[in-house]
């Protein structure tokens, strides 16, 4: 029997798309289940623990939402850049710069009230993250360097920059010389929504920024131009769209959002600058953006799911002693499967001779 791949003439039905996605995820679960049992863990018990730990209780859900907040903001940024086919994989570094920018303000103005210091922290974080993204974009447009590599190297540089600051000028004299900044004043901390929950106002930031971005793409001229240029950069250029400007703008927004994520995280959950806050959200954000096909609502769902996965893996460790790296495997294999499944969304496979 010979098979042939044909391009779909009609778009795949919604149910069809869901079926393709679900089967991709099931396949990767099967694959990681095999690994679990290789490691001596019964797969079913493993997945139950994973699910319980990530989504199975009110605590778990709260934890997952908390962890999803920075991932969502980073991923939103990544998606903006990817839409224009600018491969910004520097969200991790831009996130670090955002945290640095926010910390600078928090440390400089310890006596300011919340209404003054928090907006300034956000602004400073977004600018720091945005500029960290803008440099590779300018290099790409002016010097033709590859933005994938430059943004990636900028991640490493940002990590060491953060280390340099907390080991040097920002080192807290009151913490026995450990590599952390001073704890922020209460005014510089984003608090929880209410006393009954640990979910903080960062969630509201996510919702507002997400909606603003959606409106920007849908209703502004520049938003339209970005979408057009993303479809076909050369055609856009002929149509008189300033592609250079758009690339820079897009990556500045992208970096700004990642920077904002750094601000929310450093202010709401860490309360001080420390190297340990860089745990790879910027990389997870890329996975999320792609799983969600760059769609903001999808990003919200996917970042929540992946955050839950990360949280659940901790229970897996505690209860069944499965190594933490299992989370990476699961993430990587889901992404590969979903990528491969993308074929079925645009092509169909038929037996040769039939159409």
């Amino acid at each position, binding site marked *: 029997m010979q098979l*042939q*791949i*044909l*391009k779909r003439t009609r778009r795949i039905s919604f149910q069809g798309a869901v079926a393709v996605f679900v089967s991709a995820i099931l396949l990767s679960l099967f694959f990681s289940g095999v*690994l679990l049992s290789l*490691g001596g863990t019964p797969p079913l018990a493993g997945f139950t623990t994973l699910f319980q730990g990530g989504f199975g209780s009110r605590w778990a859900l709260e934890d997952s939402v908390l962890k999803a907040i920075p991932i969502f903001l980073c991923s939103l940024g990544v998606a903006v850049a990817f839409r224009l086919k600018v*491969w910004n*994989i520097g969200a991790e570094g831009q996130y670090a710069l955002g945290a640095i920018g926010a910390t600078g303000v928090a440390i400089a103005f310890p006596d300011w009230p919340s209404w003054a210091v928090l907006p300034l922290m956000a602004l400073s974080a977004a600018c720091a993250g945005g500029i960290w993204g803008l440099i590779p974009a300018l*290099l790409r447009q002016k*010097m*033709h*360097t*590859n933005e*994938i*590599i*430059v943004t*990636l*190297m*900028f991640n*490493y*540089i940002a990590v*060491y*920059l953060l*280390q*340099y600051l907390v*080991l*040097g000028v920002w080192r807290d004299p009151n913490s026995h010389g450990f590599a952390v900044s001073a704890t922020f004043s209460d005014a510089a901390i984003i608090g929880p929504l209410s006393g009954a929950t640990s979910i903080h106002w960062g969630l509201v930031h996510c919702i507002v920024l997400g909606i603003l971005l959606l409106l920007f793409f849908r209703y502004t001229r520049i938003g339209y131009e970005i979408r057009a240029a993303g479809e076909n950069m050369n055609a856009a250029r002929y149509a008189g769209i300033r592609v250079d400007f758009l690339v820079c703008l897009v990556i500045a927004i992208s970096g700004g959002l990642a920077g904002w994520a750094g601000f929310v995280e450093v202010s709401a959950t860490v309360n001080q600058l420390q190297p340990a806050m860089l745990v790879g959200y910027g*990389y997870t954000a*890329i*996975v999320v953006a*792609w799983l969600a096909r760059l769609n903001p609502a999808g990003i919200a769902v996917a970042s929540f799911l992946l955050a839950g996965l990360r949280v659940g893996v901790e229970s897996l460790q505690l209860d069944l002693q499965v*190594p933490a*790296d*299992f*989370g*990476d*495997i*699961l*993430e*990587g*294999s889901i*992404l*590969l499967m979903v*990528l*491969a*499944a*993308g*074929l079925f969304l*645009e*092509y169909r496979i038929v037996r040769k001779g039939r159409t």
Partner: protein
Amino acid sequence: MNFDILIPLLAATVLSGTPVLYATLGEIITEKSGVLNLGVEGVMMVGAFSAFFVAAATGSPWLAFVAAGVVGMLAVSLHGVVCLWFQGNQVVSGLALTLLGSGLANYLGTPYVGTKAPGFSAVALPGLSRIPALGEIFFNHDPLVYLSYLLPPILWFFFHRTGIGLGLRAVGENPAAARAAGLNVQRLRWIGILVGGFFMGLGGACLSLAYTHLWTSSLSGGRGWIAVALVIFAFWRPGRAVFGAWLFGGVMALQLRLQASGAQVSSSLLLMLPYALTVIVLVFSSAWRKSDAAPAALGVNVEPGE
């Protein structure tokens, strides 16, 4: 800096550049065929782990070295399946491969963290190692370093004098024209991916068999990404990749020696150097040559059934 320090520094440069060199050459082969594989880091990790595993189990470093290459091929075949068969995005597939490969190596390697395995150690080449200065710098290393000296000329020959090598380049430049000329585009791209993966796996093996003989999680420490950067620095030429890899190794070795000799510079800033240098080098090489040295069809999937 006097001679007593300079020569060991250069020797360390060659040594720490070698794992990156293997990986860079692997990525060059892959990219020449028009496929971008950003999963080098992940492939190096599985290569490093399988080399360590096989060496610990069999006691034979050479067997382990080859095993790492084969496992590297297996790992990149995932990239091949996703990108060549299923038309997945090459950038994202590479990232997924990095996640999966590092995760897999760390996961399977957990019981082995902190254990030792047999590996290669330095063997002075008779005669050559006696040459003043040069002998110490180039000919007093482990066999994997010597092997890496042979690769660039071999690869040059492969790309310029063999049918497969020429076909690979044609496919990377213009798949449609290559197909019209009767070349099997898919098959050549598979060759590019698999041979490339073999070398990336070997790069990982250098880390766990020669550079150190210990296993640890995240052994590769970002060297795979450096390799991706060096491909551009090298303009996709194997010969230039050698200098790129050594330059990177040199900066790494230099910053540690600066500290050891008492330089009063922040260690965080010194550790930043290799990455900052990669950016600077990239800017200069790109500005100088633009990006026309890249295979024209790099990262572009070929529509199935065309």
